[in-house]
């Protein structure tokens, strides 16, 4: 019958070391994915310029600055 020592497979490293190495690789891969594809999101803090959203939903050109300019936020816009 196969013995305990013969049953050791893949690596002889302790589990804690294996997991630490995997976590390092995982963080590196996640960072790489983020840098490559997701580091420049169209929304910042889950928010887009209102004019862009209006254009997307209503097929209108961007609204005049007076109605939705970030410099004149509505009370609800300032809640974030």
């Amino acid at each position, binding site marked *: 019958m196969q*013995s305990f020592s013969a049953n050791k497979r*893949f690596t002889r490293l302790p589990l804690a070391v294996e997991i630490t190495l995997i976590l390092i690789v995982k963080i590196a891969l996640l960072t790489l994915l983020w840098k490559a594809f997701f580091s*420049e*999101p169209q929304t910042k803090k889950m928010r887009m310029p209102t004019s862009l959203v209006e254009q997307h939903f209503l097929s209108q050109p961007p609204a005049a600055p007076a109605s939705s300019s970030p410099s004149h936020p509505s009370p609800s*816009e300032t809640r974030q």
Partner: protein
Amino acid sequence: MIPIDEVVALSRLQFAATAMFHFLFVPLTLGLAWILVIMESVYVMTGSPVYKDMTRFWGKLFGINFAMGIATGITLEFQFGTNWSYYSHYVGDIFGTPLAIEGMMAFFLESTFVGLFFFGWDRLSRVQHLLITFLVALGSSLSALWILIANGWMNNPVGAEFNYETMRMELTSIVDVIFNPVAQVKFVHTLSAGYVAASMFVLGISAFYLLKGRDTAFALRSFAIAAGFGLASTLSVIVLGDESGYTAGEVNKVKMAAMEAEWHTEPAPAGITVFGWPNEKEQRTDFAFKIPYVLGLIGTRSVDKQISGIHDLKKEHEVRIRNGMLAYAALTRLKGGDKSPQAIADFDKLKHDLGYGLLLKKYTPKVVDATPEQIAMAVNDTFPKIAPMFWSFRLMVGLGILFLFIFSCSFYFLIRKKLARQRWLLRLAMYSIPLPWVAIELGWLLAEYGRQPWTISGVLPTHLSASTLQPGSLYFSLAGFLGFYSFLFVIEMILMVKYARRGPSSLHTGKYHWELLDKPSASHDHTAKA
């Protein structure tokens, strides 16, 4: 011109693939944490070292899964901002709080306690360590709560109103969002499903040891805890799934009608179709075998309320789409600069149907001038494909019944002390280890595909939620995610199989199978007497 359908389809595929991969890790974390609490509680109460070994060994498998699973959900948040920017903007005011709390729970609370669980055995008293294990379980359940509150809101968007100035949904009541009945039912149903998955995991691996005749005292005790916990959890899943059906009937009639292939509204109480072949072309279910009354009782909790059929719901949707066209016209007027009280009142009266009007954007940029054909196409879009819903639901329920059978038999034969002779049951338990994951993924398919064509039910169509991206970048990021998750999944499998095969010998206590084999003079059955 970017083919928008391709971008939306790729964004959906990417989100679905990452969410489904992520949820391979989650159920085991949710369930195994509570199994560890039970095992360690018995250790604290009895002082029997085998229960400490059980907590440490199953805790090791928990640790592997936790390490593989942690931060795999963060990729979904990457996608919110990049692939689903309009959706993110729409929900930002609602989701900011739950997602921030979930992040705090998952990364700080849970990770801290998991660290203390592994490194605290020699530093904490028995009761203190048990408290830490309990907090690990509580922390993982609470982090699931916040995600499911967010997901429940997408199915039943309560406690929020659309603000035409900011063009997004804004929070009106956090209490309504938290106590959303859909979120609450979803939370307990998902948790129970995780408990079933973890119970089957422990039951199946313990069955493997029993079949091999290894570490039988350890395996029998693990098997007993898994059988009891699994039986209670499976019953919970069934009861809470029934409650989920009731909730779906109230707030998501479309999902209910689709998964039951309920083409026409039947006299109350409606019967449930146990088996049949949904024929979408002819709008009927061929070879249907029905049990009278059951669907009506589940869906309405009454004998006199009807379950709306697909045809009647489509008629309601057509009315809402036509109202949505008027809401769209009123919104256009407001955004054009007319902020008169009359313009605001006109919009407020119709704004709850704005989402239905937006469904027409898929077919025409001039929503207010949509033709009857375009309206008919938008009406048809208000339902997902029936066959995937119908079959996913039946397969999920069938698996649930199988789990009930396995846990009931396991519990029965354990009590009668006849388990060792039931090798068929041990084999069945072992081969059933992956099945709860299949059932859980089917459940998510029902929940998410069943919500189509919406990202936020009745409010925001999926095709308007996606960002304006190049398909090429989506193909590359999709490939990157598939590679990343496949890597994690393979590593998880390698480590799980490796440590499951070693069994409690991996604790290096000198008492278990492989270690005793290395010492030929030692009694093989030493553990059974320990």
